[in-house]
Structures are given as structure tokens and as C-alpha cells.
């Protein structure tokens, strides 16, 4: 099982926490720049600009966040060009509607999604740039719908497929799907299943978008403590100097 953390800070990526591959999660960037969890607030050009900074700091493989393609298949075509030339090694493209909005999950039509997938494949300059698919709609299209989409993606030449928006309630169905598709990966997401359950499904890879968010929460608490300590030190210093 390939473990792929979601990261966005250059200094964390440099500490080699990322291993050889990481997911440059738009949600983390939206948190840093906008204090908001909603990645779809970031436009393609803003995200690509950030990606170019990160690209120059690491030789690790970067999986770029293609969201839901930033519009229709034509938009996806130009988005993939932009992400590739900004340094993405792989682009993860989801089947939600545009703009994607996880709390109110809506999936786009199959024809729109597969159009975006084909457009992504056609848009690449380098055939080594990987197009990855993210299927978020198991709660909407069910196991059969999921299997159909996986089969079509395979036919289009997509080798890396990740399931997202996974819930405890659908665990049994998930077991079935992973048993049938040995190349399937999954996304560990803030509101979804935990690491233990994810591992029990024996996916080919896990993109962990929980870990940095968890680390950030504890970092925030620690920062508050450190600021208090620093300020206490300053008060002592002032008292000392005035004597």
C-alpha cells in the first residue's frame, strides 16, 4: 500500500515527510491563504501559482489537485496544460460538479466526467504525466454505478483511481469494491472513514488528507502556548531592565 500524504508547506515537504510522492491539497492552501476549508474558492491560476513555488523546492512527485476540472471539459483541457507546465507529475480529477463543494456533494454526469478525463489525457505534453480519477459519488450512484465508472475509466486508460467521500455506513459495499478492483486507492478525508478502516480495505494507495489538518490543529494550540511563553519572557525582561 502506497501512503501519500497531503501537504502544502514547502518547509514540511523539504523535511522528507512526503517520501517520494505527495498530494498538494487545495484545501490546505485555501486554509493558508484564505482561512477557509473550501478548496473551490481557489481558482486554477491561484493554485497553479502556488504549485510553481512548491515545484522548485522538491524533486518528489507532486499529485496536483485538479478539483473537478474548473468548468467543462474544455476548461479541464486548459487546466491540465497549466498544471502540467507548472510542475505537476500527476493530476487528480474528481467527478463532482463544478465548483466542487464537499459538504453538499453533487456528482456531474458520466459524459461530462469522462469528457474531462479524455480532455485531460489529450492535453498533456508529457505522456508520463499521470491522470488520476477521484470518484466521490458512491452514496449517490451506489456500488454498481461505481463499478461501471471504474470499468469505463480503465477503458480510457486511467490506471489510478481513488475513492473519496467514504463513510462508515457504506463499509460493506466498500469491501466488495476493493476486493473486485486491486488497483483501487482511496482518500482519507476529514469527515470520512478513519485510518484503521481505510487500511482494512487493503487499497492500492491511500491519499491522506486528514494528517496535515490534524497536525495543524495541534500546531495552532501550541502556537498559542508559545506566544504566551514568549510574552511572559518579555515581561520578565522589562522588569529586569527597569531595575
Amino acid at each position: 500500500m502506497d501512503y501519500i500524504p497531503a501537504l502544502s508547506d514547502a518547509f514540511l515537504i523539504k523535511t522528507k515527510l512526503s517520501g517520494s510522492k505527495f498530494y498538494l491539497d487545495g484545501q490546505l492552501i485555501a486554509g493558508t491563504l484564505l482561512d477557509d476549508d473550501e478548496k473551490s474558492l481557489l481558482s486554477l491560476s491561484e493554485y497553479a501559482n502556488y504549485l510553481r513555488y512548491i515545484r522548485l523546492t522538491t524533486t518528489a512527485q507532486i499529485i496536483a489537485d485538479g478539483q473537478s476540472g474548473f468548468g467543462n471539459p474544455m476548461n479541464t483541457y486548459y487546466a491540465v496544460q497549466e498544471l502540467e507546465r507548472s510542475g505537476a507529475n500527476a493530476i487528480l480529477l474528481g467527478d463532482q460538479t463544478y465548483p466542487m463543494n464537499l459538504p453538499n456533494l453533487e456528482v456531474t454526469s458520466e459524459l461530462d466526467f469522462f469528457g474531462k478525463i479524455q480532455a485531460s489525457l489529450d492535453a498533456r505534453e508529457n505522456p508520463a504525466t499521470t491522470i488520476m480519477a477521484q470518484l466521490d459519488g458512491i452514496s449517490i450512484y451506489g456500488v454498481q454505478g461505481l463499478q461501471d465508472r471504474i470499468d469505463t475509466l480503465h477503458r480510457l486508460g486511467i490506471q489510478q483511481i481513488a475513492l473519496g467521500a467514504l463513510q462508515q455506513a457504506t463499509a460493506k459495499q466498500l469491501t466488495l469494491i476493493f476486493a473486485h478492483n486491486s488497483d483501487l486507492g482511496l482518500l482519507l478525508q476529514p469527515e470520512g472513514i478513519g485510518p484503521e478502516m481505510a487500511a482494512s480495505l487493503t487499497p492500492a494507495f491511500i491519499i491522506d488528507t486528514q494528517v496535515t489538518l490534524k497536525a495543524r490543529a495541534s500546531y495552532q494550540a501550541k502556537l498559542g502556548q508559545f506566544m504566551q511563553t514568549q510574552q511572559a519572557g518579555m515581561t520578565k525582561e522589562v522588569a529586569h531592565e527597569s531595575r
Partner: protein
Amino acid sequence: MKADNMRQAFKQAVFQKQQALAMIVAPDSLSARVAESVGFKAIFAAGYATSASNLGLPDRGIADFGIMLNKCREIVNAVNIPVFADADTGYGNLANVARTVRSYEAIGACGLFLEDQKWPKRCGHMAGKSVEAPEVLAEKIATAVAAREHEDFLIMSRTDARQVYDLDEAIRRSKLYHEAGADMVFIEAPKSIAELQRIATAFPDVPLMANMIEDGATPSLPTQVLGQMGFSIVVHPTALTYAQTFIDEQVLKNLKATGTTDATKAQMVTFDKFNQFIGLDKVNAVEARYTPEKIAALIGK
């Protein structure tokens, strides 16, 4: 890959000795597309035009690394001919220079020049320039050469010492910069044909650039003539900025006075011609490849 092809095409054009490469400074992607469409083989993304088009300000060192890099990147992405970059002083110390080189390589530029002015710099033909000691740029050039990933990403030295000192000092410095690793040499603002000839004589084997700024310090000569003198690149840095400003003013004065563009319409491109030029058909064709009908047929549904 496009970036590899562009670097190779530029290097080839610069090092062949038949004729000088005519390089035009494009203030933006649109003007770069126009230049490409009329047959120019190289674009220069440079400070005078970018300061004007992005900031509405003169070339006085206010347009910084971020603005210059982004402008160059937009132009690189818009055309299929090499784009050379004006990297001013490298924007700080040697660490800045290394980052500047890596960044311009990453966006697909074919090379860049670094100059010996003190920051904030000025356009090479403006009064009041000052230059660093020659060792400063020599070190920057060596750093740039060491930082580049591709040998065919060409580094040019630029000296502004002609105006501050004299041509001898400018030539002496440029020899030092060439020894430090500069692939090409640019001596800014020679004041006569005789000075241009002296520069050509001083560097018989190094590609040289001549800068033809309208009303600048250097006499205006045709690209072919400069090529025969021994210059490899002839750049026009301000022509499009001045032309745009001129026509914008004409059209807008008339519009302000008459309330319509009828009188100046003849000086414009038409709606259909522009859409064709800018590639509307190509973008529409991309969209048409992925209609629901075509995708249904593709996946057999």
C-alpha cells in the same frame, strides 16, 4: 518538449553567423502573438515594456522579480517561438540570482540577461545610472551559470558602464563577464556607429546583442546592417509600447470627442479577423471534441 525545443531553436539562431536574429520586446501575450504571426523568430520579455504594461510606471526598478517572471511566463505560454528574459540585476544577492535562473528555466524561457547596474535600476538609455564594481556581476554570472539545469539556457551579461564611464570600461567589464561564463554579451547604449563597430571587433567569437531604442543613445541601424557588423541579436525594446500608446491615444481622444469609434474604426482589426487571429476556432474545436455525444460514442454508451 516545448521548452527544450525553444532553448535549442534560440541557441541555434544566436550562434549561426549568417544573419542577426530580430528579437522584439512584447509588452504582453497579445503583442507576442502578433509578432509571431508576422514572422518574428524570438520574443524578449523586458522591463521597459513590462513596467509600462503591468504597472503604468517607468522602467525604474519598481517592476520586481515576481512581476517580471509572471509576464515572461504568460508570453512563453502564448507563443511557439523562443522567449528571452530581462532579469535586471537578478533581484538581490547571489541567492536571488540562483532562484531567478531556476525560476526562468522552469517557466520555459530560453535564457536571460543579468546587468551590472545598482538597484533600483533604470532603463539603459535614461540619465543618472550607476553601476556596481565589475566583480559583482562577474560573481552573479558565475552563480547563474552554476544554477542553470540546461546548458542551452543561455546567460547574457549586460553592462551599463558605457554611460557611467566609457566604452573601454564597458568592453573590459564584458570580457570579465564572458570569462565568468556569460554565453552572450550586451553592451548597453553605445553612442555611435564607430562604437558599435568597436564592440563587434572586441568580441569576434561571442554572440552580441544590439539594442535599438527609438530616440535612445544608440544610432538606429537596420537589423541586416548590424548583423553584417557582427551582432547576433538585434532587439527593439520600445517599438510596441510606443505604438500601442500612440494608437490608444488616437482612438480614445476621438471616442471622447465624438462619442463613437466610427472615425477610427479603419485603424482597428475587425471582430471576425481578430477572433480568427486570436484562435477562437481552435478553442471551440477543443470544446467540440468533448461534447456528450462524442464522449457517449467513445465509451460506447
